[in-house]
């Protein structure tokens, strides 16, 4: 397992170098224990989180219960994994099930959007911890990184319960850059009135002031401020990574010209450019009414785009070092409500993964015949957080040391699911 590899001299040096660089960059955000046992010259590990906001129904996706009272109207279809069926709304995905890792026995027990959004991304119930994107951005950070470690692609929704917690105690540097409505961050082009010589002068003065100000003071805010400038400059220098016109018409078509498809195309560009973690939020799964109609619409977008994305990552050699996680904040009720909807449900639902660090073709755990309870191999949300970290080579039993306080990177009461790890 990546996180338990024997330590070679090269890795020790590499780790020491990395830790020195990281500690210098982070100021107060030091690492108490070594977090990675890898040589940093290997292809960098990355993470792509596809977040199905609102809560996709496990019945209509990964865990169909066709023909039962709770199963809904859709049929189950066979997949490329012998003996495994998924919902008929995912026909493209069914053909690549042998490349996926599906957990059908998650009991997060949180039927609430805000709590679920936070908990499923932080692996914790208690507030204040960094979400997956922030944590991975920090824990996989390399000294040569210039781009932000975490980018969250979303729409400008009125109810932004997808943005919860974020970097927590890791601070502003890992908060993540938001790309809203498929538009690049604002002001990436330097105003024409600002000549290069003026910009250089301002930058020199800023750095000088920073150095003077940090003497005898807590350096962390100043470092975060400096990092923000550097990341902003890097984004300005490499603003073409947001330019989707550079992608072929065929790619646009294959990914889908809807918001989710275009966001996934952008995510691939960002990962390709070296961003450590990208989150793409696919909205509007909160089908309290007409669940079956809305899941037809949502799944049609998700299904084809997911397969295109995984194919693309694999073709480019990126999937072997990129973990793709597919999760929402909750599942949906076995009972079908008065309006043909399914409500919030956290007691027995599913998540999926693919790519780096996880075993393909695994369906882990199961629910009972009606999908009301986990039948075997129960999984807690904290277990998943450990598993995600381990899959990208992070020792999830390590701790952060922030401001003199030690905090476990992942919930000590939970553990990685070894059967899922490659």
């Amino acid at each position: 397992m990546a996180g338990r590899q024997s330590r070679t001299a090269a890795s020790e040096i590499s780790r020491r170098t990395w830790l020195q660089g990281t500690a210098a960059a982070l100021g107060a955000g030091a690492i108490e224990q070594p977090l990675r046992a890898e040589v940093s010259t290997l292809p960098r590990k990355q993470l792509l989180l596809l977040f199905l906001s609102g809560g996709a129904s496990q019945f209509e996706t990964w865990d169909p219960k066709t023909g039962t009272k709770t199963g809904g109207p859709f049929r189950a279809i066979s997949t490329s994994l012998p003996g495994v069926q998924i919902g008929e709304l995912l026909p493209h995905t069914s053909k690549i099930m042998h490349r996926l890792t599906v957990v059908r026995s998650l009991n997060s027990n949180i039927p609430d959007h805000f709590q679920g959004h936070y908990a499923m991304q932080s692996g914790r119930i208690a507030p204040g911890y960094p979400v997956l994107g922030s944590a991975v951005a920090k824990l996989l950070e390399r000294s040569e990184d210039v781009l932000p470690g975490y980018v969250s692609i979303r729409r400008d929704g009125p109810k932004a319960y997808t943005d919860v917690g974020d970097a927590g105690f890791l601070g502003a540097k890992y908060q993540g850059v938001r790309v809203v409505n498929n538009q690049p961050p604002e002001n990436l082009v330097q105003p024409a009135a600002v000549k290069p010589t003026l910009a250089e002068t301002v930058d020199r003065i800023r750095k000088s002031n920073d150095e003077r100000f940090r003497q005898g003071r807590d350096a962390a805010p100043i470092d975060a401020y400096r990092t923000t400038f550097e990341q902003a400059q890097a984004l300005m220098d490499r603003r073409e990574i947001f330019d989707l016109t550079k992608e072929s018409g065929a790619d646009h078509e294959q990914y889908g010209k809807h918001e989710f498809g275009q966001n996934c195309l952008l995510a691939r560009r960002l990962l390709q450019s070296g961003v450590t973690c990208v989150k793409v939020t696919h909205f509007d799964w909160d089908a309290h009414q007409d669940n079956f109609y809305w899941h037809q619409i949502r799944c049609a977008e998700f299904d084809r785009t997911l397969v295109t994305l995984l194919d693309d990552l694999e073709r480019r050699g990126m999937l072997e070092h990129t973990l793709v996680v597919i999760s929402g904040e909750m599942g949906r009720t076995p009972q079908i409500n008065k309006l043909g909807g399914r409500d919030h449900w956290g007691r027995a639902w599913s998540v999926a993964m693919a790519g780096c660090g996880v075993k393909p073709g695994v369906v882990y755990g199961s629910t009972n015949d009606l999908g009301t309870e986990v039948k075997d191999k129960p999984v807690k949300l904290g277990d998943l957080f450990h598993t995600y970290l381990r899959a990208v080579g992070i020792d999830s039993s390590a701790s952060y040391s922030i401001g003199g306080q030690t905090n476990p990177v992942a919930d000590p009461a939970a553990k990685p699911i070894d059967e899922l790890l490659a």
Partner: protein
Amino acid sequence: MKSDPTKIKEVAEYKHHSPLVSCAFDPTARFVLAGGRDRNILCLDVAAKSTTELSGHETWVGNIVRSGTDLILTADFAGVVFAWDCTGDKPRQRWKITAHASTIYALAASPDGKLFATGDRDGNIHVWQASDGKRMHKLRIEGHPVYGLAFHPDGQRLISADRQPKKPRLKVWEFATGKEQRSIDVPQLSAYRRVEDIEWGGIRGITISPDGNTLVACGSNEYSGPACALLFDIATGELKLKLASQLKGFYYSAQFHAQGFLLTAGGDIGKGELRAWDPTKDESLATTATIGPCTSLDVQPSGERCVVTQMIGQRSYPDSGSLTVYEWSE
């Protein structure tokens, strides 16, 4: 026999193990078929007062209508339509077609019994020959599911209701030529919630008056409003009347009685109603309360009786259904 809308009485109720959402008398009124969240159809022999189940569909049956002199058509979530021959001692399958690649949300039969129409999730409307299920015409509403269909009595036009967000629409088609004659936006029946960016409302059922002048669209009056039916002048597209219940929820279905009054069926969980209206004014003539929301209704061809389906259950989760027979009596 004259039917007095104020003298409606329940004559029988039949429980079903799953929620029911659609029903119809067969053309001779011997049978009633009812379907819903179940692959089997409840079949009531009206005279014998006994029920059986019809099998064949592989998934939920969302729409049922009678057709011509001897058929009942049933349509399901997998796009399949069955024609049930009702001339024997029990309905028997005459033909079956895979009409759509996606869910059928709307089904209607022409007044002369020769044609029927289906509408699906993807905005496809197909017009079929009832005798053998052969497709005759294709219409399309780009990008929006079809939630209601009704043939005009003139035999030339078909009315569709689609679920365009924020402004559900009625469209009047000359179906033989595919020409769209009129489009009517119905924002009153929208329940768009920007929070989820989901259209919760929409037109849930349509019907046309026997004289062909009035089109009724059923639904909910905005997000938290009452069940509501809107009456439009087909010739002008003008909204003539709004009939609103005291109940929150939806009107799912409406039908004109041959004697001129309009019946609406609707409600919310744990409460529903079957109501008779004077369609010339905003006047409720009679209301029959039910324990569950009334999800569909059908009036017997002779006009003596009607049947109503309901969803029954605790709190917000119906887990069974009922088919209730009402009669107008002196």
